[in-house]
């Protein structure tokens, strides 16, 4: 019998998620965002140029349209700067937090023992700055998956292996209790197992190796 305690939990003594200090993203990531913004702006500008040349409705009010374009581009850069500033992440002993949003602030907390898998993603421009995006997936579906961009590559790697390590340790502890077979499809799996275990001739194996 394992040691069992059941003392009352005082809400005040629990660690507070709301007072965790968030780490900002790497400064270079702002450049990455700016580069993709700039490319998008160039596309917008070329589109408008074509319209100005070929469409009478547009070419009558050149100044107005250019002003609108500039306003849109300015807005784009402004919002992405704000968005960059508001993004932040924090690692606690037992969970990972991510904060984002422009008009609103969304804070998501994912406990380590609920993480399904972890991935790293490098965009083209991010790679120029040695940055990666850490992707944390849970069983909660896309709305609860974390995508933390703008991490220095080594840091992202180390967080990733830290998380994977945590997951495996936690898994080992609760292995005895786990029952992983999906009920609805268990027959399916067993059937497939049988077909997979059919003896294969050695020659085929050799060709592969």
């Amino acid at each position, binding site marked *: 019998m394992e040691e069992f305690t059941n003392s009352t939990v005082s809400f005040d003594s*629990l660690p507070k*998620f*709301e007072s965790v200090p968030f780490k900002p993203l790497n400064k270079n990531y702002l450049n990455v965002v700016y580069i993709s913004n700039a490319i998008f702006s160039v596309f917008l500008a070329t589109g408008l140029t074509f319209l100005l040349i070929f469409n009478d409705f547009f070419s009558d009010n050149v100044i107005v349209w250019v002003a609108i374009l500039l306003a849109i581009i300015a807005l784009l850069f402004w919002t992405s700067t704000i968005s960059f500033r508001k993004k932040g992440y924090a690692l606690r002993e037992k969970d990972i937090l991510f904060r984002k949003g422009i008009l609103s*602030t*969304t804070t998501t*907390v994912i406990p380590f023992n*609920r993480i399904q898998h972890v991935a790293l993603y490098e965009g083209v421009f991010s790679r120029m700055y040695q940055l990666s995006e850490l992707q944390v997936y*849970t069983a909660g579906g896309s709305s609860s998956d974390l995508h933390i961009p703008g991490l220095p590559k080594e840091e992202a790697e180390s967080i990733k292996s830290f998380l994977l390590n945590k997951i495996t340790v936690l898994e080992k502890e609760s292995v005895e209790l786990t029952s992983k077979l999906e*009920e609805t499809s268990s027959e399916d799996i067993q059937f497939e197992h049988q077909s997979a275990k059919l003896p294969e001739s050695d020659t085929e194996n050799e060709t592969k190796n």
Partner: protein
Amino acid sequence: MPSFDFSQPQRQSVKGITIMFADTLQGIIRSLWVPLLLIIYRFDWDKLLYFIIGLVVLMMIIGVIAYLKYINFTFFLDESKEEFVIQKGVISKNKITIQLDKIQQVNINQSVIQKLVGVYSVDIDTAGSDKKEASIRAVDNQVALHLKNKLLSFEKNTEGISSEEESIEPNKPFLKISFLTLLKVGITSNYGRSIALLIGFIGTLYGGFQDVVTSFEVDEDEVNGLVDQGMGYFSISFFLMAILVLVLLINLVRTVVKFFDYQMVVQRKALAINFGLFAKKNTLLKPSKVQITTYSQNFFQRKLNLIDLKLKQASSSDVVDEEGKRSNAIEVPGCSRVEKDEILKMILSKLPKTEQVFKPNFRYLIKAISLGIIVPCVIFICLGLFVYEPLQNYFPLLLAYILMIGIIVFFQFRNYRLLLSKDFIVIKSNAWDVEHQLIEPFKIQGISTKQFLWHKRSDIVHLTFHTAAGDLKFKFANYSSLKPWINYWLYEVERADRNWM
């Protein structure tokens, strides 16, 4: 000779280039089908040569892309870390690591193109993640089988536990829904869905009628005159009655056909459920797999002591049901209060009680009224005044609309509650079908809080519980008094070795 070695990064079958080619081509056609159709439609035969040259160049580019995709796609099995790793991406590199014991299912599939080339795709299904991501598109049959075997052999075998308990329990029905109850359920539930169905049906009928009129060039005035005359015979009230009866009838038939002979039997601590008139459905449900339990009741159902219960399981891939939510729900269409409590006890091992009730802030009303009443009314009035004047005749209807939506919003607000206790989170909502959504804290996968800038001063937050059966939300809650609870839930999740499924 050991079986296939997956410990080194390896590529797919060489034939996979064809599959990559087909995939890329398909992607291009899918995204460019409008301009392509235009080109074909207005094809100028003089330019056939250019067209062919263009086509050849395009095919070559796709070929190169397909080759690069093939070259950059590798996968391997890291047995020491118990991970399966897929690396892919031509320009952006993507590395996917899957914990072997997180794998729920491995499927070997073959599409038509894959059949032509003679390769198989291996799709790895992990709970919650995007299915497409962990998919190997082209491997040989033997490789596929071996890979599947390897991936699944890491699965911890726990069948021994459940088979021990097989013996004693007799198969007496735990719950049986009689034909009469089904009739009652059919009459009292799902009005919204049936009305939507009916509107869709009438819409297509009317569209078909219009098609007939236009395509056969029937004299429109004549036909419309006939229709008017017809409308004269049936008064509007009669028409409405007919619609009502039809809605009830559709509901009734649907319910009876779907849930005919509904039986729930306790089998080895799991619930075996059988139902259906034409399509028989059998499901086995383990109580520990249930993520969200919901039960709902409207005014009539309360009078008849009928409760609609739904048990939502974790959905391994993003299955979308008819309401567009991703879920894997088992429905108990009609049970009494006592039976509901029995089922809840069976699944949750105790009944929820309430220690603290959260009400939404009054700003909930501001949002609901402005979105539900003010915006539609303003649009309608603007259309009537400036765009299409005949609409003005219908302005009095706005009053009825405002009254109706007002009542709905009022009841929604009155019923919107977050009921909390140490062991349960219950969200009560809806105006007509009053619904209780119930989760245990340790089934939470993650918690999100969302606060708008303008809600900071009034201390309001929107709370989302992420579970494996979908998200649960409670909006316009008081942040300060919710914070201790959030910390408590996180503590519950993080300390527990309890398995969430």
